[in-house]
């Protein structure tokens, strides 16, 4: 199953000995580079050789072909066959044989490798359990061969890279075969220091051939440009990009847009947290209006300045990013402000309830349910009978305590393995917090 050496066998009609399973069986012989392709159709094979696969030997003129070919049950030919034919014969005995043959295409030099359907299925991962024979289709065979070669090349490349780059643990062919299932680019890109790649996975950077193609492309472009214009790289685009008038203007707008957003977001959230503005009623509407105005102003500015497209796209995209950041900041904090208010009202209710309980008021006390912001659903039952006995009071107390715990959990930060103190909702509304937040690559 060595793809690299097909050229060496191009004069034989051959049947290839193939393992019963694609992955593990193939890797057992990877260390030796003997090629087992030179075999003729064997008697142990379950499939009788088709007439074409046995007959065209006459038109090949290889001197090494034995004359009494048809009489021999097994004939070891080719590179591998000559060196260890015996070993080969043993293997043939153990394995089912799948015919692969070469067809001559008009003339002596060109041959075509044709593979049986079964091998194709094996290569693309299908099982060979069902012995049903399918009709041979040339396109199927070619596809199978192509995918197989792709698979083999990639497996080898990754084994080599993981060894060569010494990144990650060195892995065997078997492992790589298991990991790769004919994916086109199953490579983990390096993603920064703090998140190590999962163990046992081959890590390479982007495929080196991709990088090489880019380098070659750039060289080609430089050469073409030199031939036609006498200079390596004509950079008209650079001059558009770094036109000083536009550049300074663009950076100024960007900075204003970027840091200036703090002047809106932070005070608004502080006001909401101090209960100056209700998030649920007016806050979110104000925020949405602000976002529309913000986007409108920035886009209008690019139109008014009539910037070239590079500046326009940069500013518009950055504006959208900032919009998303502000939206997220406002809506998350707004949501937290609602939770915070509920927590406060729950605390009030809890105090009320405890006061009831200590008074020992079994005589029947009116307990009005649900303030404006408290969790209404948990006390829905008490509206029907407005008198509470001490058992019910305990139940409600427990329910409120659970709700308080849930609110507290939502209001504090969740970072695993964090040694810093927890951040709780109203404390996070600082200028520095917002400043840090907009700089994070989120």
């Amino acid at each position: 199953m060595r793809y690299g050496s097909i050229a060496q066998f191009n004069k034989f009609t051959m049947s290839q000995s193939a393992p019963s399973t694609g992955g593990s069986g193939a890797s057992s012989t990877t260390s030796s580079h003997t090629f087992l392709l030179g075999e003729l159709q064997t008697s142990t094979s379950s499939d009788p050789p088709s007439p074409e696969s046995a007959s065209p030997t006459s038109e090949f003129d290889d001197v090494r072909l034995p004359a009494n070919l048809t009489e021999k049950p097994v004939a070891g030919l080719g590179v591998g066959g000559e060196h260890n034919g015996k070993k080969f014969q043993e293997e043939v005995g153990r394995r089912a044989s799948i015919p692969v043959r070469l067809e001559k295409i008009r003339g002596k030099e060109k041959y075509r490798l044709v593979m049986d359907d079964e091998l194709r299925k094996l290569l693309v991962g299908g099982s060979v359990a069902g012995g049903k024979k399918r009709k041979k289709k040339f396109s199927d065979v070619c596809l199978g061969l192509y995918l197989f070669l792709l698979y083999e090349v990639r497996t080898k490349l990754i084994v080599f890279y993981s060894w060569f780059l010494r990144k990650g643990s060195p892995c065997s062919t078997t492992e790589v075969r298991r990991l790769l299932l004919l994916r086109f680019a199953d490579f983990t890109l390096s993603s920064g220091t703090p998140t190590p790649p999962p163990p046992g996975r081959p890590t390479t950077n982007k495929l080196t051939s991709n990088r090489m193609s880019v380098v070659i492309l750039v060289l080609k472009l430089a050469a073409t440009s030199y031939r036609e214009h006498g200079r390596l790289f004509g950079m008209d685009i650079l001059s558009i990009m770094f036109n000083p008038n536009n550049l300074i203007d663009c950076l100024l707008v960007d900075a204003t847009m970027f840091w200036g957003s703090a002047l809106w977001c932070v005070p608004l959230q502080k006001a909401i947290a101090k209960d100056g503005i209700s998030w649920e009623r007016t806050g979110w509407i104000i925020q949405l209006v602000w976002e529309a105005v913000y986007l409108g102003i920035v886009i209008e500015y690019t139109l008014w300045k009539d910037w070239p497209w590079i500046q326009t796209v940069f500013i518009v995209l950055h504006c959208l990013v900032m919009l998303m950041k502000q939206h997220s900041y406002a809506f998350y904090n707004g949501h937290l402000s609602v939770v915070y208010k509920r927590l406060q009202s729950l605390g009030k209710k809890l105090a009320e309830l405890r006061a009831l309980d200590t008074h020992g008021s079994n005589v029947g006390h009116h307990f009005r349910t649900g303030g404006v912001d408290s969790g209404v659903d948990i006390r829905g039952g008490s509206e029907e009978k407005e008198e509470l006995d001490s058992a019910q009071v305990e139940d409600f107390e427990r329910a409120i305590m659970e709700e308080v715990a849930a609110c507290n959990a939502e209001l504090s930060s969740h970072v695993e393995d964090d040694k810093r103190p927890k951040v709780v909702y109203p404390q996070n509304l600082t200028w520095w917090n917002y400043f840090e937040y907009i700089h994070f690559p989120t």
Partner: protein
Amino acid sequence: MYQKTNGNRVVYELAYPRTATINWTYVLEKTTATFGVLGIMIVVSQHLILPVVLQTHALRLLPLSARLQAFPYILLDLIFPFMIEYLMAWYLIWELILNVLAELTLFADRGFYGPWWNSTTWDAFARDWNKPVHNFLRRHVYHSSISAWHVSRGTATVITFLLSAIVHELVMWSLFKRFRGYLLVMQMSQVPLVYASRTRLLKGRETLGNVMFWLGIYAGPSFVCSLYLII
């Protein structure tokens, strides 16, 4: 109300995972790569895209039938440079710039993208190629629309795609100064494609799905841009 999510986000959190120190070698490496990639992008657009764009400017004076005749050739001219630019732009932003920024701000969570190149469906691609924005849309559009308007998950998906498509169309409009809606239509057509990928015909055929996906990635950007440029 809001789903707790792990991973990096364009969304606000009370606290984020942080690193202790800045690895300056890493910063230098990524910064150098940033300028290298920018240089390649400029060379490619200068030599492979700009001539075609100038050609389309000349074409605009011609009647529609002549423009339509020229369209396939413009498309073929643009496919390869656009593919390069597309991959480079993605690599530049999500691998290089975001990582440099994260390193400088001691930001520890580096999950800016998933292995989108292995995507077999379009929704997987939408999830993986731009994780920060995906997280934003999931929290503030998808889940918010479910909780605010009590819509089904399918409707919420359509709303999310629609919003994203409208924003993309806005960018296209500011870029070409032409309101055509090609990108909007193309992007919205991903929704039926997502459902098609879940049918019996396509489900479980990963290689086929991946091939279809890459076909779309190759043809999509150049097709849309040629449309905007010519018609």
